[in-house]
């Protein structure tokens, strides 16, 4: 009977270590996109023609990219997004700073801010259209008013949570008011400002599409709404996907780079 204790150790075939691949963010992204495509495919089979096929949508996206009308709508919507984003960010940040630094301003503005945060965004859009008509101004005002309270609130809370020992240092070294603002206070709230800007941008482009769908004759939102009215779901999906991709690219590309540059001291 062979002695089982005197086993011969044979070299085991070395299996490849997949851990780095499985844990990489790229792998997760590929899995996520693959899952969406599978789900889309299943939905397209189940709910034809309301959910368009993947290949038909891709063909439509390609023809959109070659269409002058699409780019005209895209440029107009982008302009609306950027102008609303800029005004809401600047006004919101200024208001947040004022409320954060001044107790009287806070006592006056805080209830208004709380109320503004509680109002659903479509209400602003409806009231702006009722008050100002369906022109450019209505959308701009509605978007600014809808986004501003969020930005102001984020900035205010971060101004109040700042490191007061740095204020004391600035006072002891007699730093001028402008320098205290630009070198001591603002850099402290840069992370909050960037969060506010990301939030503001994300909210702006979604609301612009809604405003265009409700009250504008042109722009991506209006184009999507027109395609929907004519039940051209392939066009709805193609236009929406292209616009979402462009906005994501802007948010991650431009804002991401700004963030990296402004916060390089943390690396």
């Amino acid at each position, binding site marked *: 009977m062979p002695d089982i204790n005197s086993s011969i150790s044979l070299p085991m075939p070395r299996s490849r270590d997949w851990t780095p691949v499985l844990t990489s963010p790229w792998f997760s992204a590929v899995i996520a996109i693959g899952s969406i495509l599978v789900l889309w495919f299943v939905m397209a089979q189940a709910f034809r023609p309301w959910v368009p096929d993947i290949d038909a949508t891709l063909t439509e996206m390609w023809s959109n990219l070659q269409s002058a009308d699409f780019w005209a709508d895209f440029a107009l919507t982008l302009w609306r997004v950027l102008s609303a984003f800029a005004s809401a960010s600047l006004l919101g940040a200024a208001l947040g700073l004022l409320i954060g630094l001044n107790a009287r301003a806070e006592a006056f503005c805080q209830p208004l801010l709380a109320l503004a945060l509680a109002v659903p965004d479509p209400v602003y859009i409806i009231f702006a259209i009722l008050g100002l008509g369906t022109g450019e101004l209505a959308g701009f005002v509605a978007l600014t008013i809808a986004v501003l309270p969020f930005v102001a609130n984020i900035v205010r809370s971060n101004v109040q949570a700042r490191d007061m*020992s*740095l204020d*004391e*240092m600035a*006072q*002891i*070294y*007699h*730093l*001028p008011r402008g*320098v205290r603002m630009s*070198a*001591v206070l603002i*850099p402290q709230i*840069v992370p909050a400002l960037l969060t506010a800007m990301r939030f503001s941008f994300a909210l702006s482009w979604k609301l612009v599409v809604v405003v265009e769908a409700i009250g504008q004759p042109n722009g991506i939102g209006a184009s999507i709404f027109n395609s929907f009215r004519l039940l051209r779901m392939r066009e709805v999906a193609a236009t929406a996907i292209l616009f979402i991709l462009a906005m994501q690219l802007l948010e991650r590309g431009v804002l991401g780079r700004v963030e990296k540059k402004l916060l390089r*001291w*943390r690396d």
Partner: protein
Amino acid sequence: MTHDARPPVLKVTDLGVSYGDSEAVLRLDFEIRRGEFVAILGPSGCGKSSMLNVLSGLNAPSRGRVFVEGAELFRPGSTAPRLGYVFQSHRLLPWRTVRQNLEIALAASSVPKDSWDRRIDEILSILHISQFKESWPMRLSGGQRQRVSIARALLVDPAYILMDEPLSTLDEVTARALREELTSICQRTEATVVFVTHSIREAVFLADRVLILTRGPARIHEDYTIPLDRPRDYDDPRIAEIEADIVRRVQEPWGLVRQKERHLA
């Protein structure tokens, strides 16, 4: 030159600080002369911070007067004192490089802009941190950050420098090295220093004089002149002897005798 021959940079008379009915500092009287290194020694919570807030110009005293280079502080129209401050934690701006942190302090001083670069290079060289001129503070060790903080205080041509337990957060080896450097730098730059600490040995090693405060509300219990020449050695047995002597002297004013009796009882 004797101490008395030097003009007083800082003169405090009948200084009192109170918060409502609670007194933090009671009737302090002292003078600090140009180039002197004076340690202020007191137990925790005795009112050292309240006193520092007055000497730094942050808070006005409840009573008494403070003179800096002959000019009275806290009078209508008086200017804030020109001083350097080394805090317990470095309080550097993390989003500015070492050079930029120093420049920002210089921007508020009367130092002409064309001499900033030279002065910064000089002071960084004295403190042995020239290689970190363009570094972010977060990349530096605790000792290096505190060196930058000391550089910032020295750079602004201060009438006097307040140091609030600046070495208490460092490990003992780093703190010991910095103590030795601090004495030589202060001698070299003839800086007038008010150094707050609760370490008796540190006070004895660094200072020309030690103002021993009582438990809060703080009063001056004793103005103790350190009878040692410079340079000093931290392990010199005479420093240990003076330390033991001061420990004996603070038993009563710091309430240590009563604590011991209570413990024995």
